[in-house]
């Protein structure tokens, strides 16, 4: 291989590496302007997860609502995680979601941790058991929708967190994020 070719190859590889870095940064789902401005309280120790390979040692409580604590955490590799658990036992989230692409983004402003229940075996028909989750800045409420599109429940977002004390009976077929004017920003698949 000639020296010129080696230099050209080195340049191509260097450029590729730089471009990759730029694209990874720019293409990150959480780098498009959408954000969660609630930094939460001071860092607290997180334990009880028994996840040796997905170690989360500390996190921040974003809010405590209706007896539930909602957390923002991070894996050792920097991946953001969000979780929830009983407020009576702070630092022990019972559920964790780690979106490796980040959260939020303008096309994905809601991370729903609501619990759904089904009692029919002949249909995939689910109702709400508990409502809670996280939403990006600018989302004023989350609407839970009936199969016909009607709003079954509207839950206000405060401090990037939403939670409801009670849930309605009946089928739910998705949810939507709306802004302060009631304009729909996004709908779940």
């Amino acid at each position, binding site marked *: 291989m000639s020296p010129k070719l080696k230099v050209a190859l080195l340049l191509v590889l260097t450029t590729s590496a730089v471009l990759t870095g730029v694209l990874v940064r720019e293409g990150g789902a959480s780098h498009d302007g959408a954000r969660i401005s609630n930094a939460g309280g001071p860092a607290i120790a997180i334990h009880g*997860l*028994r996840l040796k390979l*997905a170690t989360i040692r500390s996190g921040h409580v974003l809010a405590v609502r209706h007896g539930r604590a909602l957390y923002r955490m991070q894996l050792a590799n920097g991946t953001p995680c969000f979780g929830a658990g009983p407020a009576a036992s702070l630092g022990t989230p019972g*559920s*964790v979601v*780690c979106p490796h692409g980040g959260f939020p983004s303008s096309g*994905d402003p809601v991370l729903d941790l609501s*619990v759904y229940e*089904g009692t029919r075996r002949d249909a*995939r028909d689910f109702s709400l058991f508990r409502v809670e989750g996280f939403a990006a800045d600018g989302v004023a409420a989350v609407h839970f929708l009936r199969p016909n599109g009607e709003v079954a429940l509207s839950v206000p977002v405060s401090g990037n967190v939403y939670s409801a004390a009670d849930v309605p009976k009946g089928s739910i077929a998705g949810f939507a994020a709306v802004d302060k004017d009631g304009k729909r920003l996004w709908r779940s698949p």
Partner: protein
Amino acid sequence: MRRILFFVIACACAAAAVALARPAPAAAGWCWPNCLGYGYLGPSTSTNTGCWFSSGEVCSYYGSWFNMGLSKTCYPGCDWNYNTTGVVLYGYENHDRIRGRFTARGAVTLYVQPNELGMSGALRAQVTWYGGPASQLNAGGIG
């Protein structure tokens, strides 16, 4: 170029997610399709072990589970927000009900304990296809 690069990065994330999703060793455990790789959960998938839904669901045996985890890849493709079009419900079930959380995310790792869903006692950990194409995932439970 950008899409190819995105795909490569997504694959790397998925590989990392598989490793991360594997629960810590415990006395009892369940993995689907096994503890090392991914399987496809679509409307006709079944473990044929008496799950809540006869098809479109994989479930564990009845046990006293501490935690269940799920790693879902970008298959068959993620949009720019890392969402797929395959929606699954993950959680637990017993003889009376099935409960869980929905996700359509790709490149994601999720965990949930039974008490988060208001459940206890003998349960099956489950992952259920809800809509869209098959999802590529690895699920596991520790007791």
